């Protein structure tokens, strides 16, 4: 088995996998798409919204903003021992957004979304427009971000593009190229490493289960 990184940047990685069967390589590709957890806003408490955008639409836009994720700090809500619907410090991050008063029409950007409990979980880019408010209109809300997977909702998809193809024209000697592109929440290489880790854990669990059948 041979691994070779052909291209590497923060949001894109191209890896050549030699001596790995197609099904195994494809499992990594699929896990990168749907099972690597990332942070996204999930619960929102709207304190005031007098903008012309409906609460639902505002909530949807906030959910789609990719947040920088530190996987070592948080656990998935289903693995957390708290029973709180909004989560605890181990499984969620709270953020606040307040447009304040304005004399002219202005755009509210993702940079104004401030993290309360953890300053590292912030939007990947501070220039994402969320809503536009006219003078006299106000938006004030509390948002709770949590880890989730792409299976549940596309906003939790760690990689937006994950492509597997044979390195050479003809598919003969188990030589594939995996291309992963990230939304910025995790770096592309982190997604790849996490995907293999998840696959390993799942296989381990499966082996343990089948082992218990013998008894």
């Amino acid at each position: 088995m041979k691994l070779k990184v052909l291209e590497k940047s923060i949001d894109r990685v191209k890896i050549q996998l030699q001596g790995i069967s197609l099904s195994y390589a494809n499992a990594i590709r699929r896990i990168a798409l749907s099972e690597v957890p990332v942070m996204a806003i999930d619960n929102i408490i709207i304190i005031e919204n007098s903008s012309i955008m409906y609460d639902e639409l505002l909530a949807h836009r906030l959910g789609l903003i990719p947040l920088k994720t530190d996987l070592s700090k948080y656990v998935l809500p289903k693995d957390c021992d708290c029973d709180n619907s909004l989560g605890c410090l181990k499984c969620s991050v709270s953020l606040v957004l307040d447009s304040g008063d304005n004399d002219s029409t202005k755009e509210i950007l993702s940079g104004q979304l401030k993290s309360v409990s953890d300053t590292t979980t912030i939007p990947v880019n501070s220039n994402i427009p969320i809503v536009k408010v006219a003078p006299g209109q106000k938006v004030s809300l509390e948002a709770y971000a949590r880890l989730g997977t792409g299976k549940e909702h596309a906003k939790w998809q760690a990689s937006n593009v994950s492509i597997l193809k044979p390195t050479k024209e003809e598919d003969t000697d188990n030589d594939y190229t995996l291309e992963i592109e990230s939304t910025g929440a995790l770096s592309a290489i982190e997604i790849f490493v996490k995907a293999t880790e998840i696959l390993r854990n799942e296989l381990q669990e499966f082996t343990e289960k089948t082992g218990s059948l013998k008894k």
Partner: protein
Amino acid sequence: MMKPIRCFTCGSLVAEKYSEFDKLVKAGGDPNEVMNSMKINRYCCRRMLLSNVNIIDHVLPFYEYLNQRRAEFESDTL
């Protein structure tokens, strides 16, 4: 209503690129070349920028005027 945050098809972030794209195109740039230079390569993401209409910009002037009228009305009654 406003600039879409992510591409509908692939899910990559497009919202933060829109203002730069808009500025360069309004300055006379060719949309095709502007998108190439901004490294928006897939056609799913390219149509997100090309086909977007900011309806919110058509609606907000009414609220700006409303606010202005309200201020005038308040100063009249005082």
